[in-house]
C-alpha cells in the first residue's frame, strides 16, 4: 500500500462530441491512482466511459479538464511506456505475426539480432511458435489476441493498457486467455489497467477493481480483490464467489441505469 502511484488521474472530465447531435458528458470528475506493478480492473456498464478513461491515460485523446500524470509527468500523447491492447486486436493485417511483433522493437535503437531474438521470445511466450510467418487473417481470434499481447509486451512498456481484450473471444478461449494473462503478469509484473464489463473477469484478474457509474462515468468505489487465486478451483471458492457477489451488487444498479439511459 505504501507504493507510490505510477498513474494519477485527477479530476478529469471528458465530453463526447458526436458528428451529429449534442455533446455528452462521458466522464465526470474522475480521480484514480494506480500503483506501480498493480493489476487494476476498470469495471462498469457499457457506455460508462471506461474505455475513454483508458484512452486518456494512453494519450490518444486530448485531456479537456483535470490532470493525468504518468510517472510524475503529465500525459501529452501516446508513448512506448504505455502499451495498449484493443478488443479488435488492431494487428497490421499486411504484416506477418513476426513482423507485427517486431514493429515496436524496430522503433527502438536495438541491433537487428537482438530485436529478432526478443520477438521470437515473446512469440514463444504466448504459444505461437510455428506461426511466425502467418498473416493475421489466417489466425483464430484467440491467436490474434495472443499476437497483439506479444507485440505489446515485446517493446517492454512499463504499463499495459488493456481495452476489453478478451471481449471478442468465445467463452472457453477467454477463460484460457485469462489464465495465461495472469501467468504472464506474474512473470513480468507490469502495471496493468484492464477495462472490462465482466465481473468474474475483473475479480479473477485484478488486485483492485475500480467500479464506475453509468454515464456520466465516475469512480463509484474501488474494491480490494486480492486473495489466493491459485488452483483450478478458484472460481468456486467461497472467497471468489463472495467477492463477485460484492462487486456485482455495486455494478448492478449502474447497469440498470445504463440500460434505462440507452437511446431507443
Amino acid at each position: 500500500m505504501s507504493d507510490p502511484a505510477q498513474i494519477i488521474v485527477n479530476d478529469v472530465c471528458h465530453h463526447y462530441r458526436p458528428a451529429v447531435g449534442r455533446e455528452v458528458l462521458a466522464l465526470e470528475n474522475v480521480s484514480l491512482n494506480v500503483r506501480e506493478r498493480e493489476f487494476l480492473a476498470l469495471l462498469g456498464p457499457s457506455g460508462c466511459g471506461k474505455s475513454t478513461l483508458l484512452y486518456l491515460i494512453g494519450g490518444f485523446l486530448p485531456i479537456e479538464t483535470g490532470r493525468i500524470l504518468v510517472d510524475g509527468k503529465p500525459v501529452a500523447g501516446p508513448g512506448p511506456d504505455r502499451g495498449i491492447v484493443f478488443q479488435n486486436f488492431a494487428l497490421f493485417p499486411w504484416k506477418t505475426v513476426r513482423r507485427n511483433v517486431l514493429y515496436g522493437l524496430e522503433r527502438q535503437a536495438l541491433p537487428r539480432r537482438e530485436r529478432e531474438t526478443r520477438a521470437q521470445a515473446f512469440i514463444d511466450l504466448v504459444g505461437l511458435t510455428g506461426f511466425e510467418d502467418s498473416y493475421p487473417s489466417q489466425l483464430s481470434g484467440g491467436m490474434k489476441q495472443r499476437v497483439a499481447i506479444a507485440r505489446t509486451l515485446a517493446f517492454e512498456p512499463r504499463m499495459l493498457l488493456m481495452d476489453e481484450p478478451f471481449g471478442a473471444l468465445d467463452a472457453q478461449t477467454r477463460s484460457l486467455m485469462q489464465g495465461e494473462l495472469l501467468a504472464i503478469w506474474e512473470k513480468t509484473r507490469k502495471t496493468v489497467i484492464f477495462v472490462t464489463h465482466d465481473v468474474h473477469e475483473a475479480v479473477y484478474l485484478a488486485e483492485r477493481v475500480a467500479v464506475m457509474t453509468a454515464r456520466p462515468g465516475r469512480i463509484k468505489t474501488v474494491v480490494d480483490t486480492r486473495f489466493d487465486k491459485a488452483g483450478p478451483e478458484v472460481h468456486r471458492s467461497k472467497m471468489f464467489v463472495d467477492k463477485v457477489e460484492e462487486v456485482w451488487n455495486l455494478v448492478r444498479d449502474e447497469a440498470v441505469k445504463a440500460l434505462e439511459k440507452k437511446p431507443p
Partner: protein
Amino acid sequence: MNDVPASKMSFTPGVLIRYSPLLILALAWETASRLHLVSSLALPPLTDVAQAWIELIQSGELVSNGLSSLYRAGAGLALAIIAGGALGIFMAVSRPVNTALGPLVELFYPMPKSALIPVTVLWLGFGDGSKILLIFLGCMLPVTIGAYNGARGSDQHLIWSARSMGADRLRMIFDVVVPSALPELLNGIRTALALSFILLVSSELIVARQGFGYLIGYLGANGSYEAMFAVVLTVAFIGFLADRIYQTIVERALRWRT
C-alpha cells in the same frame, strides 16, 4: 474453386476453353468477310489484317509509333499515380488540406477529360508534353479518390497502436494509412490505367504526329483499312495485356488479405 486465378494462367486446355469465344469471333469475322456478308471495306478479312500487321512490324512503323504511345501513357500514368495517391492520402489525414482541395476534386472529377485535349495542345503543343499532361490530369482523380476512401477507412485503433509503439505521425501515415488505403488505391489505379489508353488514343487521333492514335487516323484516311484494323487490334491487345499484368501485381501486393 476450380476457377483459375489470373496469375496462375498458362497455356492449358482451361485457358483455351476460356478464350474460345474469341476464337469463334475471329472465325466468324473471317467467314463473314470472305463470303462478302459484309463489305470487305468495312470489315477486311482477319487474315488480311494479320498480313498488314506483319508489314507494319517489318516497316518499323508500328514499333516506333507504339513506343511513342507507351512512353506518353506510362509517363502520364506514373505522374498521376504519384500525385493522385499523395493527394488522396493528404486529404484523408489533414482536415485543412481536405477543406481546401475537397471541393476542387469534386468539381473536376466528373468533367470529361477529353474536353481538355485542345487545352493541353494550346499549352504544350503537338508533341509528347500535351499527351502526358492530358493523361496525368485525366488519370489523377480516380487514383486520388481511391487513396482517399481507402485511407479514410484506416482502423483508428491500429493508428493508436502504431503511435503507442513509438511511431511518429509521419511514420504512422506510411506504416498504417498508406497500406490501409492500398486495396482501394489499387482499384483507382486500375480505372486510371483504362482511362489512360482512352485519353492516349483519342488525343493522338485528334492532334499528333506519332502514336497509335495518329497511325489509326492516318491509315484510315488513306484507305489502308487492313492496316488500320491491325493497329486497332494491337491497341486492344496491349490494353488487355496491361490490365492482366496489373491484376497479377495487385494479387501479389494484397496476398495478406486471403
